[in-house]
Structure formats: C-alpha cells, structure tokens
C-alpha cells in the first residue's frame, strides 16, 4: 500500500528530507486525547486572567489612575496593563507547555524515540508539540480578550487582531522554549528558565511604560522578545497602529522560525544519529 505523503512546499524541500513527513497533525491529536481528561486545568487556566484583570481594575488602577500610553496619549491604568498581561500570559503558557512537558517526554517518557521509530520526522514532532502549546495559548488568550471586551477595554477595531498577535507570540516562545528544553539535562536546570522568564515578565514594560527606565536600560529592554509582543498588542488594543509595528512582527516571526529550526534539528541530532 502506498502511504499518503503530502506534497512538500519549498521551505520543507530545502530542509533535510528526513525531517518532515507531513504528519504533525497526529501529534496534535495525541495531545488532545491525553488532555481531554484534564479539562479542569484548562478551565482554571482560562480563569486566571480574570483574577489579574480584576486586581488591576479594583486595586492597582486606583493607585495609579492614569498613565501615558503608546503615542503619548493618557489612558486608564487597567487599559494600559491589560494588553501587557495578555502578551505575558501567552508567553508563560507557551513556555510552560513546551519546556516542562517536552522535557518529561524527551528525557523520561522517551516518547519521541518511540515516535521517530514510526514514519514521523523531527520537524513533525516539533510542529505538533509547538502546535499544541499554541492551541492551549490561543484558548487562554480568547478568554482573556473576552474579559477585556466585557470590561470595555477594547476601544479600537484593530483589537480583532489581538488574538492573532497573541497566537504569534505564543508560537515564538513555544518554539524557542522547545528548542531550549532539548538542552536541559535535569529538572534542577528549570531554574534557568525561570531566571529568564521572571525578569522578562517583570521588566518588559508589562506594568509601567518604558520611559521609567534610564536611557541605557531602555535600549536593553527593547531587545527583549516579550517587549515586542507587548508593544504589538498595546498598539492594537488602543488603536495606535504605526509602521513600526511591522518591526515587532518581524522580530516575533524570526523568533518562531529560529525556534522551530532549533527544535527540529536538535531532535534530529540527538535521536536519529
């Protein structure tokens, strides 16, 4: 019987031929089956942003009142912080899924060894695993955007692009996270991930504008990937859209492509040679 192999696009023909077999969707199916019992985790994860937004609405927002948003216009603090939290939660969710879970499957469950013994390539695995992380991120982001909408924080028609932007952000972080997870050797090294994530969450203008920093630090902060996700979403949510946002978009796309390349070549190198 002839197996059904989909015709490959240009990009996939450039890659080494054994990397991709067009079967990434079966990994997605597996993840959905595995997690269909743990729906409570998903439900509570979708509730989390509600807690955060509520805290900023009734608490932090009253302390601050108004801040200077993108383009220099003054806006309410909760409207300022909400897009930042959306980007941060897309990052956190994606990285959690693509590091802890991938590490366990790679090192302990030997799931990928088993999969690579079937007609599935490393790129299929990378795409499938990252795809599920993104799917999960998309679910949480949808809940978040819905809460933002009911709180009246979506004031611009550009806000319809918030969800795609969140999906792109979680794709970028999931891809790089999965690539990095293949380098980890023991669970104690997860501290390194926290060491990168936590400062990025706190300092990437999530909670206060970039102008707070001295000039040298502003430059450092604007190199962080989360900063670009936040800028993109803050612009879309407030309707302050400019050409510079294409730069943020390019940054995130490059990051996603680089992460995908890293994850699949690492799997290839470590498990197939």
């Amino acid at each position, binding site marked *: 019987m002839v197996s059904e192999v989909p015709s490959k696009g240009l990009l996939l023909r450039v890659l080494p031929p054994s990397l991709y077999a067009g079967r990434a969707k079966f990994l997605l199916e597996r993840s959905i089956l595995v997690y269909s019992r743990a729906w*409570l985790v998903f439900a509570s994860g979708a509730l989390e942003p509600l*807690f955060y937004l509520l805290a900023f609405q009734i*608490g*932090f927002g009253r*302390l601050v009142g108004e801040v200077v948003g993108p383009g220099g216009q003054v806006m309410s603090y909760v409207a300022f912080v909400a897009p930042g939290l959306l980007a941060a939660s897309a990052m956190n969710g994606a990285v959690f899924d693509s590091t802890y879970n991938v590490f366990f499957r790679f090192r302990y469950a030997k799931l990928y060894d088993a999969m690579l013994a079937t007609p599935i390539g490393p790129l299929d695995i990378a795409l499938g695993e990252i795809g599920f992380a993104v799917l999960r991120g998309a679910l949480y982001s949808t809940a978040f955007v819905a809460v933002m909408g009911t709180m009246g924080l979506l004031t611009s028609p550009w806000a319809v692009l918030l969800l795609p932007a969140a999906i792109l952000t979680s794709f970028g972080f999931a891809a790089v996270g999965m690539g990095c997870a293949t380098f980890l050797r023991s669970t*104690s090294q997860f501290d390194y991930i*926290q060491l990168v994530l*936590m400062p990025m969450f706190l300092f990437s203008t999530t909670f206060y504008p970039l102008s*707070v920093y001295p000039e040298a630090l502003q430059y450092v902060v604007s190199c962080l990937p989360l900063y670009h996700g936040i800028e993109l979403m803050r612009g879309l949510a407030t309707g302050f859209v400019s050409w510079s946002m294409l730069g943020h978009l390019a940054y995130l796309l490059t990051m996603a492509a680089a992460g995908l390349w890293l994850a699949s070549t690492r799997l290839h190198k470590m498990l197939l040679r």
Partner: protein
Amino acid sequence: MTEVLSTGRVVGSWRGAVLRVEGYWLWYRRYWRSNLYSTGLQPLFFLAAMGLGFGSQVQPGTATGGLSYLHYVAPALLVSASMMLAVGESTYPVLSGFKWQKDYLAATATPISPGQVLGGHLLWVALRLTLAAAVYALMALLLGGWLNAGALLVVVVGVATGLACAAPVCAFAASTYDEGTRFATLFRFVVMPMTLFAGTFFPIDQIPLALRWLAWISPLWHGTELARGVTLGTLDLLPGLGHAAFLIALFAGGFVLARRFFYKRLVV
C-alpha cells in the same frame, strides 16, 4: 562520628526532629546553589519592578498612608514571598516524602516518629524562611525600602506567616494520595488570589465589602498588616495581638491536623 549510638534507642521528641533537620541540611549543603535565584535574585527583581518601576507611577496618597510606594510595598512583599516559599516547600516535597522519595517511610523505620518527621520538616521550613527573609531584608535595605529598624521584626513576621501557611498545607499534602490537579488548584485558587487580593499591593478596603471577608480569613492579610505595622509604626496593640493570634491558631490547627494525617499514613 566517634560515638556510635545503639539502634533502637528512643530519641527525645525535639532530638528526633533536629536529626531530620540535619538530614535536610546535608542535602542542602550540596544543592544550595540552585536556590540562589529563588532566595536571592527573585526578591530583588520583584522589589525593583513593583516598588521602583510600578511605584514610579503611584502618587503617595491616602491609599499608601502618604508614603512612597516602595516603603508601602517592601514589607508586604517579604511576607508574600515567605508565604509562597512555605507553600511550595510543603506541597510536592511533603508528598514526595510519602510517595516518590519515600524518605518519610525510611525515617519512621528508625526510632523517629511520624510527629518528629512533621516537626523536622516544619523546623527546616522555618530555617529556609529565615534565610530567605534575611536575604530579602538585605536586598530591600540596598534599594532603600526600609524606614527604620522595624525591618528586623518584619523578618520575624514573615517567618511566622510562612509557618502559619506551611502547617495546614502539610496537612493537605499528607492527605493527598493521587495528586492529580490538587496542588495546581491550590496554587491557582488560593495562593495566587491571596497574593493579589490580600493587601500586598493595594489596601483591601478597595475590595467590595461582599468579597472583603475573603481577605480577612487569609493568613497573608494578617501577616501583611503586622509587617506594615511594625515597619511603618502604625500598629496598635489590640489589632496586633489579633493578627498574631490568628496566625498562631492557624499554625496550631494545621499542625494538629497534619500530625494526625502523618500518623495515619506512616504507622502501619
């Protein structure tokens, strides 16, 4: 060791717990470096981001008692970090003692009793909390977060609040057999909302009265009130005693319950 203890000798109740602490210490001496981030850098990051960064947007007003936001948030962040460390150390590590590493089973095969295993764990948590709180206090000193020497008392309050959370969480972990999503639920529906809504970042009178009782019954709020009171000098005797009594009662209740579960699970 020069002196060899005969096996089967019953040790005193404190001695047994201290022997457990010695065991933890032996382990920690090798692995303390992996905690450098959580007990060293993380408090610094949080204080810089919330106290200085977010604080730069806050005008000193009635909500912060006329103080700068850094002074307002510094003592509360210590207590909050202490609570999180205590809960973290009393969930998976405790279940692991029963289920994965099984060192609790090993310890109770010697003349150490389940109660001493629990006591040893809580003593160890207290030491970890003291270290973390002291490191935080030093970091906050460097950033100018303290108004007076009351900061030393904040360290004590932080450890006490942590222990008041650790004891009931130990009971929860000891009564957990199939962890499933139990711990994740605890973190998501108790620890996280408590961090946000128990007065760490903003006064709880901004919360609608119908929901404010949730803050009142949380140990973190009582700890935060005490911590702010001692460093800002606004603590009155009676409310202070009340907050302390709440924390002590929570610890005592948690300890009794945890002790019962430890015996139930370790005595065959």
